[in-house]
């Protein structure tokens, strides 16, 4: 081997070792595990109890349905909100810019456990601060964690609160790369700001918005800490059980590694498939 190749691998080796041991090897191992019955020793090849079980397992189907529901509602709402936020936070008309940015971007640094604790507390049924406000304006009290729909709404609100600013930061960076003269020319042609948003801003932001959608899909497919902590292990009665939580239960509560691996690969395949559909729908039709 040439000397420079050897030098290159000296630089690469430490990282590649960790990368191979804790990323590449587990990806392969997980695929292999997904064909094994692991409920008792010795583990045997039996895809019937892993992949075969998926479509017959009501608990899996429930988690799948819930995850898709969150995906269908939360991701579009959050991305739309993030886009609007990015545009408004970038406006020259905005006052108190620093405080505004802090308000929307601060959740990005808040950890899952900390914000789960807060959301669980402020939405608690008896004298939680949200219910105090709800009843204060004359509406009936909501049993946030006993009512399946309300519990799902809490999860969706929590995730949107946590991630809207993150996406807005990314979209904001895209906004700042749009050349000013486009808007100047449009203004000279008396194109209204609203039209400018739909005819200039949105089309030019499309690639970056799609990128945010793909990231959000992958994130939602792995939603775990929120239903685990906020709605107390996917409650009420599995109403907020997600694929991530289901995998956790199978893998680390039941220690059924084979079945959990099949679930993990299902999550990965779904994430890849949904991302590809998004990219395909959003492709440039020229």
């Amino acid at each position, binding site marked *: 081997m040439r000397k420079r190749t050897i030098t290159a691998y000296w630089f*690469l080796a430490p990282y590649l070792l960790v990368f191979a041991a804790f990323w590449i090897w*587990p*990806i392969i191992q997980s695929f292999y595990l997904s064909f094994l019955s692991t409920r008792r020793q010795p583990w045997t090849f039996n895809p019937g109890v892993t992949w075969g079980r998926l479509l017959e397992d009501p608990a899996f189907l429930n988690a799948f349905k819930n995850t898709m529901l969150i995906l269908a509602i939360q991701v579009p709402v959050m991305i739309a909100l993030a886009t609007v936020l990015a545009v408004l936070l970038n406006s020259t*008309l905005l006052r108190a810019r620093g405080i*505004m940015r*802090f308000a929307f971007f601060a959740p990005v640094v808040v950890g899952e456990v900390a914000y789960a604790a807060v959301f669980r*507390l402020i939405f608690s049924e008896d004298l939680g601060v949200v219910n105090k406000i709800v009843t204060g304006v004359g509406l009936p009290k909501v049993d946030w964690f006993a009512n399946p729909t309300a519990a799902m709404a809490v999860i969706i609100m929590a995730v949107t*609160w946590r991630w809207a600013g993150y996406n807005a930061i990314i979209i904001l960076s895209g*906004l700042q790369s749009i050349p000013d003269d486009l808007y100047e020319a449009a203004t000279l042609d008396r194109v209204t700001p609203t039209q400018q948003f739909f005819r200039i801003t949105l089309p030019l932001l499309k690639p970056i918005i799609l990128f945010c959608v793909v990231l959000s899909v992958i994130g939602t497919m792995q939603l775990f*800490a929120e239903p685990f902590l906020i709605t107390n292990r996917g409650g009420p009665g599995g109403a907020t059980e997600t694929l991530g939580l289901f995998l956790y239960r199978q893998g680390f509560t039941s220690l059924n590694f084979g079945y959990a691996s099949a679930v993990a690969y299902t999550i990965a395949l779904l994430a890849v498939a949904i991302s590809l559909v998004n990219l395909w729908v959003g492709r440039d039709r020229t």
Partner: protein
Amino acid sequence: MSRAPERTGASGPAVETHGHGRSRSRVRLTRIIVLHLFLVPLALIWLFPLWMMFIFSTMPDSGIFSPGVQLLPSDQFLTNLAALQEETRFLRTIFVSVVVAVIYTALSVMLTSMAGWALVRYRFAGRGMVVAIILGTITLPYFVVVIPQFILVARDLGLSDTWVALIVPPLFNSLGVLFMRQSFSLMPTELFDAAQVEGVTEWQIFTRVALPLAKPTMAALSIILFLASWNNYLWPLLITNSPEMMTAPVALGTLIGVTRVSWGGIMVGAVLLTAPMLLVFVFLQRFFMSGITAGAVK
């Protein structure tokens, strides 16, 4: 060069066009008002959970669950902290979290900048494949690897409740490789070649020439990695059982939903986890933002 002035599709005219100064300034004023009528309430809603976290951390449970809504802090923070400390030895878990995050960040920056450097500096057999494997797998959900990682680290190696288990497996993160590779690739090659001609070793070219130039990138990367480690929940949850080795998020997570534990104490924990990161965000915002946008990969 400074960046372009901020403006947006929803902003007023970017150039002065026709006359009618007064009506135009009135339009502008209306737009300012409409913008703030929408954004200010939304900002208050967004700040509300963080504000309540802080308020609740200063209140006794009798205050948190009293009929009225209290929006101003009380004086029970230290009492709540003492209760939390008694329940979980929370300060120990904070210590574990800090040690893990610092060592993880340092190691990850070191390993990934070396790897990123190799990919930019050398044309070698296998280079394309290394890049392809990293890029091809970067969007795979973490859940795909978590089970084999657990089997390997906890069962086969028996490393549960160790520093190594907390720090080393998450080092697979390839964010830094892409990040540093990008940074090095923007540097002029002549600089490195000139050093090479003068007989400087390859290692010294890396540490004395390339790395100092990459400092802003390393700062941004460090912040993102530190934050990720500090907030990491699932892996430490799986790999620690003893209170001695639990990270702060794991310890706090065990208290949520346990009725015996006071909410005031839990909120103190949430504040201690969140406040340092908010300070980082406020004072190092520039690096933080560039870390998120340039490497917008979770």
